[in-house]
């Protein structure tokens, strides 16, 4: 079960990004894309994530995983299909082997929702005279 290592890698990267940002006080959630062919079990990962977050700036953060279905395209005949599990990576139409995997191997941190001490950005419009 390497979900513990994967969870550690997620927490390390988020903590590092938070450290660079400087004034992050808490992380509310982390959004992760997990491809059908990434070899990671989301439930096991969520369990490990909670343990690994303890004592870090991510303590109590929610892990939001988005499953990405595997999709492939046959280069010779241009047919596209859902690869399924176990995956079929030869073309179901022409039986060709010149397959391109379009999606399904993702294991990526998409974004992080955090709280920091920064001030809101300056208003984009020009202030009206009364505000000056």
């Amino acid at each position, binding site marked *: 079960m390497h979900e513990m290592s994967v969870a550690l*890698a997620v927490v390390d990267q988020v903590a590092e990004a938070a450290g660079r940002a400087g004034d992050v006080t808490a992380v509310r959630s982390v959004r992760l894309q997990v491809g059908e062919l990434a070899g990671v079990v989301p439930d096991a990962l969520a369990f490990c994530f909670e343990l690994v977050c303890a004592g870090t700036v991510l303590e109590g953060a929610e892990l939001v995983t988005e499953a990405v279905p595997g999709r492939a395209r046959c280069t010779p005949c241009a047919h596209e299909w859902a690869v399924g599990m176990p*995956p079929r990576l*030869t073309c179901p139409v022409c039986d060709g*082997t010149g397959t391109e995997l379009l999606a399904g191997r993702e294991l*990526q941190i998409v974004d992080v929702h955090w709280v*920091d001490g*920064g001030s*809101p950005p300056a208003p984009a419009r020009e202030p009206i005279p009364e505000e000056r």
Partner: protein
Amino acid sequence: MCRVVDLRRAVLAKNDASAHDLRAHLAGRGTAVVNLLSSPGSGKTALLERELLRARERSVPVAALSADLATENDAARLARSGVPVKQVLTDGLCHLEAGMLAGHLDGWLPDGTRLLFVENVGNLVCPASYDLGETLRVTLASVTEGEDKPLKYPTAFGLAHLVVVTKTDIAQAVEFDEDAFRANVEQVNPGVEVILTSARRGRGVGALLDRALAAADGAPVHEPVMARSHPHHGHTHAQPEAADAMAHTHP
């Protein structure tokens, strides 16, 4: 205030970067890594023993590193071949990572080693996700494990550059269906070569060494469909920086 910050980072980016560095470092020393993956008991060590002996007979400088949760039994067996061998105990960890491997090679890997065989922890799930900086990734299965093994462990077989069947001397006794096995491999890894071996009878011994030497000499290695064109994982090293610049704020 609350912000949503786009990170867009591969979770295993650090391992991928370490693997990339290790591959480049070893290439500079003239060494190529062969990463061997299989379930426990598939006969990795028995086949590797024979391949190491063969390498010695042919005066190819090789070394082997064996990773297990516990015991030095495998290293003791491999050392009988007379080549440099190192045992790594992972203390319960189910796979090797590139940074760990680099640490174990530091100060041990003899100069002039052409091929380093890494016998990964016996496990077909976790090691599949970790690039070790290998030039050739080999997934093995014995005839006793069932023809549907490639379908049950699609990432291990789907990411292999070479598939090796072991223990073919007992194939008949266990009614191993070679055609079914090959069809299942083809389904998850179209075009990958499958070689049949029996360490006990000597069948196919030397083929692994030949494929590894060819790959080390720069011959094109099979490119698995699963390893192709996945933008956010694997051998890419895009590390978007400046998270602040991409931050959008929520009022």
